[in-house]
């Protein structure tokens, strides 16, 4: 009775435990579609859970989509959007033809909190913490920027070798166990076709590359898909997004998740910078969670439908 009454308030920010409980609840409410899978642990040994949405019994590695959120812990709207999206995928399957046909051909993996230690730290000690909480030997400064730690032009431009910097890339690629857990899972699976990373803020929809101004081989197609997605997103509340390659849309950034995915054969790789454009920044009020999640969903669906229609 409790499950069907579902007390989780999607219009509010939640603790890590509450998010993990809700993931479990979604898996319990939709046992034939959703399973909560532990893919690894954080530096401080918190579990890293993804929700796997699959209409098969996992017999084989179907083409798959990875939805990543919360890699920068202070960007709370990304974790909140992700858990809302999880419930949306499950409850719309069998009702919304788009998501139904996507799930009939592909699996979706959703990681709402890619940086659990950082997220807990923002809720207990410093709301503006961005990085992981790993210890840097020889330095008093803690943490690595988990979106500079991937093996994509690692330690290149747009990252710092100073452990006290917010964009510190870490001692080596995948040094952060949170990053390595995702890399190992995706490489072991071997059949991901799409990787989408949710961040905030600025209202941008970007695609590779971040580590170079060089044009990605599929840039024209990715640009077209991103513009369609931004248009769909804007159709709900008029929220306008800028579209373009990371490096020239916001700033150079080496070692990012999306560049790594693209360079490892995951063609449809996108970064969302969600609301807003700076009025509240990372402190987006909770009353904007659901409007943000609902508009983002239209953009995500546009991308996922394109992937479904263009499997490679």
């Amino acid at each position, binding site marked *: 009775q409790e499950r069907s009454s579902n007390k989780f308030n999607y219009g509010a*920010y939640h603790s890590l435990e509450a998010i993990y409980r809700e993931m479990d609840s979604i898996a319990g409410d939709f046992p034939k579609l959703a399973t909560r899978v532990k893919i690894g642990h954080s530096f401080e040994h918190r579990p890293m859970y993804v929700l796997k949405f699959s209409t098969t019994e996992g017999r084989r590695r179907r083409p798959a989509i990875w939805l990543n959120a919360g890699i920068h812990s202070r960007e709370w709207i990304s974790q909140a959007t992700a858990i809302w999206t999880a419930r949306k995928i499950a409850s719309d399957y069998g009702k919304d033809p788009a998501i139904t046909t996507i799930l009939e051909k592909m699996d979706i993996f959703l990681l709402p909190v890619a940086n659990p230690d950082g997220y807990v730290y923002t*809720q207990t000690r410093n709301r503006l913490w961005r990085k992981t909480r790993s210890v840097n030997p020889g330095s008093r400064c803690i943490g690595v920027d988990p979106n500079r730690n991937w093996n994509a032009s690692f330690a290149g431009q747009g990252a710092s070798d100073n452990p006290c910097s917010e964009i510190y890339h870490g001692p080596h690629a995948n040094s952060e166990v949170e990053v390595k857990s995702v890399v190992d899972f995706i490489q072991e699976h071997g059949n991901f076709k799409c990787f989408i990373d949710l961040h905030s803020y600025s209202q941008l929809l970007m695609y590779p590359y971040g580590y170079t101004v060089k044009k990605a081989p599929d840039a024209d197609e990715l640009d077209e898909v991103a513009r369609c997605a931004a248009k769909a997103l804007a159709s709900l509340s008029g929220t306008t997004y800028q579209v373009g390659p990371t490096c020239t849309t916001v*700033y150079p950034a080496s070692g990012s998740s999306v560049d790594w995915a693209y360079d490892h054969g995951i063609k449809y790789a996108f970064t969302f910078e969600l609301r807003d454009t700076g009025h509240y*920044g990372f402190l987006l009020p*909770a009353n904007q969670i659901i409007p943000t999640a609902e508009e983002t969903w239209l953009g995500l669906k546009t991308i996922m439908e394109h992937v479904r229609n263009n499997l490679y």
Partner: protein
Amino acid sequence: REKFFGDQVFRINVRNGDEISKLSQLVSSDNLKLNVWKSPSTFSRPVDVLVPSVSLQPVKSFLKSQGLEYSVTIKDLQALLDNEDEEMQHNEG
């Protein structure tokens, strides 16, 4: 828990590479304890910086002396955080 009483977020408009390098010099100074929310980039995007209350005056003087335009997007960060916290406590209850 870290408190941010009186801290403010400045939105600084940079128009060229020279202004970006001046700003990078400012944000990298250790003693001002600035926290960059949106980094300087060469794509004429505004730069958002969290300025601790103790650094407000020196930062304003620097921006003025360099002719850098800015606005204050968040006047009291702690007030926003208190709202958020209160709401979370209420919701957890």
